[in-house]
């Protein structure tokens, strides 16, 4: 009878059901058969047989009951599933006998799966999908690129007027918002606390499309003239500083001297601009200045209309900017174009390439892991050729042999997968802890990525299965008698799979060397970074920002009335060597200013970083003097228009001229809330270059002027002490409170600590992870080389016995085995060196200045390290081989 597929399906369903309740059915069938036999015997008795004869005849006619049961079983259940259960338990037992093998395979798979999943999860959450905002992919921010300068010369802050013009005239955005940083002093019963605030333009919360968690977000009415003063909290700030108290909604806070009502708390992932509090602010074209009396500085975000490319947007904005530049040429470079960047570029920047480098490393690690597992499986399967041949001779089909191997591979793969999930989970926690917070968007939540975990699992499981099955396929093709007769002795055995194993070792060693060299380069780079000459002595210096309440500190005189007594108090503290005011903290060099030099004509715009300081500044940081002199106390007190410049300033703008006595116009000072009239300054001194654009950045021309020339600008305090700087904290705080109880210390920290935190964090993270991966890779390779060699040597025990019986010395045997292994290691090293040199270019952006991707010390060092480890991995099995007793070896079966 022909059964259609539907009936097959019915049979299958029935069979699935047959996997259960087997015992009951079997006993029922027994009963049925017994009944039949009984009836048949009765039937024969009726025909005249004796009862005894009838019983025998009935059984004869009924046929073989055992065979019948077997047939029924095959019909009824899915035999393969039942058999597979047996295969699995067999696999478990057989792996239990070789625990070391199983442990190494499982650990290797687990590490590969876990590490790659963890890293890719980070990348996905930080780089690919960090933002919870609606249509975040279309959000971009515009920058003005000065054709005469590098990217560090780009401007991304806009005046209120510029923002309004862009918003009104552009044809490429379907929404725009702007935010401006503002330090917020929050006054409460016990004193003053500082919060990071953001002034946000009307429509900001509609732009991001996120409603508040509690209460409400800012809405259009909050921006109307005469509307009550309100603000909203970021979730994290509310949780950490205010214990997540929901009753705070609709209560009032005194922020920067204004009483404001808290109207809402944003959800956890809303943290636009990294601010603690969001304040409504309507940009007004006429208002030139903002926080701390500095020029208004809106960070603008636009959402591209669907279908508009970034290039189109940049072109459109350039047209508008050109119009604006005609009206106020001073605010724009002479030759410029607009560019737009993706929202993600706001924070990640350089860290992006770090993460991708690490991803590449982890991919290599996974590759080593898979090669290792394949190798182990091959070696194991080859050593069991005899077992399989025997099974085949005894009648096991090829499918059956494959099933046994498949079951073992599956057990290993599942074990590896379980370990992998654990490693991914734990690894991710470690990575998140080690990750430099400033480099990732504060919106991103780093968690395990399901699809990635799935992918890594599939890759690893396939590796285990394929490498486990390859030998079974080979075994199936072979002449069954060969391995049985061969009984695993001699030198010829397993030539084919031997070559495959050798190839795997070479690949492993090569990949491992590439990883090690990568890690080595990052290490060199990190060390080089620490040795970078800052041009100042950061040790024993306490720094703190002092945001002055803007309602009471606007003019130079007001600011001076605060700092003069404060500096006197601090200097009088025991252990304090020197103290100074400064408008920015090293290694950042203040605001950008265009400049003119008397008697020097130039076509392009000239720029310098501009910093306002008190007379002790250069002494606090131990910046030496190159020529001329620094500020005198009198010059500071009289707000004399004198300026100290750095060497770069002189070599850029005053080459071949005596700098002292030259007159410089610092145009930015005119644009402050407390402007400096006619800002021409006389150069009185030159100091050597000091890092002023971060540790890695090029040093820019810089100018220092007395802080007393303007009341605008950020205010910070630097104190050099004899003891650990943090020990001074309390006394400095008291001095500040004694001077003005309404002023809070913001970010008080040892300068050295800050530099290391903020500037080394990224490179240290990369270096740390690369070192871990490099180390893991090295361990895996050691295991790989060792296992292959140990296996090969064990197979050759017989041959070694013969050699020794024929007079070979132990040393010769040792050399023979080591030579075999080292040949592979050396081949791997050669391949790895070539790969490293080719791949080195990828590393280039990760490296500090002065470290080349072909850094000879690193190449030689890592090659030696790997060679030593390789020799070690060869030496252990070699020594074992050399200890072989020839008599035992010859008898060895």
């Amino acid at each position: 009878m022909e059964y259609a597929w539907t009936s097959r399906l019915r049979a299958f369903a029935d069979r699935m059901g047959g996997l259960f309740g087997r015992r009951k059915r079997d006993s029922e069938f027994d009963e049925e058969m017994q009944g039949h036999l009984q009836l048949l015997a009765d039937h024969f008795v009726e025909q005249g047989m004796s009862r005894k004869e009838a019983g025998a005849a009935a059984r004869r006619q009924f046929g073989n009951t055992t065979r019948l049961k077997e047939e029924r079983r095959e019909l009824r259940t899915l035999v393969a599933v039942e058999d597979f259960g047996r295969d699995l338990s067999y696999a478990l037992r057989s792996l239990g006998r070789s625990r070391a093998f199983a442990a190494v395979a499982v650990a290797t798979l687990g590490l590969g799966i876990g590490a790659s999943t963890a890293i890719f999860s980070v990348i996905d959450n930080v780089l690919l999908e960090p933002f919870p905002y609606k249509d975040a992919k279309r959000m971009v921010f515009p920058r003005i690129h000065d054709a005469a300068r590098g990217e560090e010369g780009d401007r991304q802050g806009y005046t209120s007027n510029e923002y309004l013009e862009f918003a009104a005239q552009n044809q490429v955005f379907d929404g725009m918002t702007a935010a401006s940083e503002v330090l917020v002093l929050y006054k409460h019963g016990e004193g003053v606390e500082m919060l990071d605030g953001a002034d946000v333009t009307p429509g900001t919360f509609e732009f991001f499309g996120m409603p508040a968690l509690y209460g409400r977000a800012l809405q259009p009415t909050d921006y109307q003239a005469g509307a009550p003063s309100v603000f909203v909290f970021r979730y994290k700030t509310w949780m950490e500083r205010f214990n997540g108290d929901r009753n705070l909604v609709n209560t009032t806070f005194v922020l920067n001297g204004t009483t404001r009502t808290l109207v809402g708390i944003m959800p956890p992932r809303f943290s636009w601009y990294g601010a603690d509090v969001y304040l409504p602010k309507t940009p007004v074209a006429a208002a030139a200045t903002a926080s701390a009396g500095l020029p208004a500085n809106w960070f603008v975000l636009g959402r591209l209309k669907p279908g508009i490319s970034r290039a189109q947007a940049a072109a459109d904005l350039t047209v508008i900017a050109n119009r604006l530049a005609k009206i106020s040429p001073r605010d724009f470079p002479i030759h410029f174009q607009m560019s737009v960047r993706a929202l993600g570029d706001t924070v990640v920047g350089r860290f992006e390439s770090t993460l991708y480098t690490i991803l590449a490393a982890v991919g290599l690690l996974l590759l080593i892991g898979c090669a290792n597992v394949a190798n182990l499986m091959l070696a194991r399967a080859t050593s069991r050729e005899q077992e399989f041949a025997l099974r085949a001779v005894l009648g096991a089909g090829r499918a059956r042999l494959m099933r046994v191997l498949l079951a073992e591979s599956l057990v290993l793969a599942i074990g590896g997968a379980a370990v992998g999930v654990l490693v991914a989970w734990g690894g991710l926690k470690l990575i998140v802890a080690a990750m430099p917070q400033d480099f990732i968007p504060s919106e991103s939540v780093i968690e395990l990525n399901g699809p990635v975990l799935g992918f890594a699992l599939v890759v690893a499981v396939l590796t285990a299965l394929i490498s486990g099955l390859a030998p079974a396929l080979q075994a199936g093709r072979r002449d069954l008698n060969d391995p049985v007769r061969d009984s695993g002795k001699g030198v010829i055995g397993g030539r084919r799979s031997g070559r495959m194993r050798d190839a795997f070792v070479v690949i492993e060693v090569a990949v491992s060397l590439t990883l090690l060299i990568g890690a080595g380069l990052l290490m060199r780079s990190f060390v080089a970074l620490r040795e970078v000459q800052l041009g100042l002595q950061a040790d024993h210096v306490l720094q703190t920002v002092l945001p002055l309440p803007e309602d009471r500190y606007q003019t130079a005189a007001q600011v001076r009335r605060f700092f003069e007594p404060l500096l006197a108090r601090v200097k009088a503290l025991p252990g304090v060597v020197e103290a100074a005011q400064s408008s920015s903290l090293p290694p950042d060099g203040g605001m950008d200013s265009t400049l003119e030099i008397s008697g020097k004509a130039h076509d392009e715009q000239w720029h310098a970083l501009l910093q306002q300081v008190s007379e002790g500044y250069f002494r606090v940081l131990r910046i030496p003097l190159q020529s001329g002199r620094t500020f005198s106390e009198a010059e500071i007190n009289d707000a004399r228009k004198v300026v100290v410049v750095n060497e770069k300033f002189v070599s850029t703008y005053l080459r071949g001229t005596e700098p002292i006595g030259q007159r410089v116009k610092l145009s930015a000072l005119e644009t402050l809330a407390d402007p400096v009239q006619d800002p021409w300054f006389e150069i009185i001194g030159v100091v050597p270059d000091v890092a002023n654009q971060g540790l890695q950045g090029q040093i820019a021309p810089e100018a220092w002027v007395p802080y007393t020339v303007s009341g605008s600008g950020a205010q910070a305090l630097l104190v050099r002490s004899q003891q650990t700087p943090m020990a001074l904290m309390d006394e400095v705080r008291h001095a500040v409170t004694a001077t003005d109880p309404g002023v809070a210390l913001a970010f008080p920290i040892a300068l050295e600590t800050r530099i290391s935190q903020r500037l080394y964090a990224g490179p240290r993270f990369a270096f740390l992870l690369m070192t871990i991966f490099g180390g893991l890779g090295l361990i895996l390779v050691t295991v790989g080389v060792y296992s292959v060699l140990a296996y090969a040597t064990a197979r050759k025990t017989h041959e070694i016995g013969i050699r020794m019986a024929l007079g070979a010395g132990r040393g010769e045997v040792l050399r023979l085995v080591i030579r075999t292994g080292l040949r592979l290691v050396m081949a791997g090293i050669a391949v790895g060196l070539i790969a490293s040199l080719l791949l080195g270019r990828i590393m280039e952006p990760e490296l500090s200045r002065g470290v080349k991707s072909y850094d000879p010390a690193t190449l030689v060092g890592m090659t030696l390290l790997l060679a030593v480890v390789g020799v070690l991995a060869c030496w252990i099995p070699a020594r074992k081989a050399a200890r072989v007793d020839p008599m035992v070896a010859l008898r060895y079966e």
Partner: protein
Amino acid sequence: MAAKKSEVLQGTLDLMILKTLHALGPQHGFGIARRIEQISRDVLQLNEGTVYTSLMRLLQQRWIAAEWGTSENNRRAKFYSITASGEKQLAVETENWERISDVVGRVLRVKEER
């Protein structure tokens, strides 16, 4: 070739059992075996046990149903009966069988004529 022969045989037994249940109504395994023996004693050498394999196959296809009842000698026995879909299948298969045996018969006659 060998596989095909057994297939035909197996199918044949299934068909005979269906026909038996169709003609006689509910029967236990013993009754079915007796009926087939009656009709084909000299032709088919049958292990009666194979009837049960066949019954199982038919059950899986839901062409027959089974129910416990009491046999002639007052023992518990399973009674099999043909279902509606079994009747349909029987009609299809009977027609099929007649066509095939007709074709086979003609082929064999052709061979003889040569």
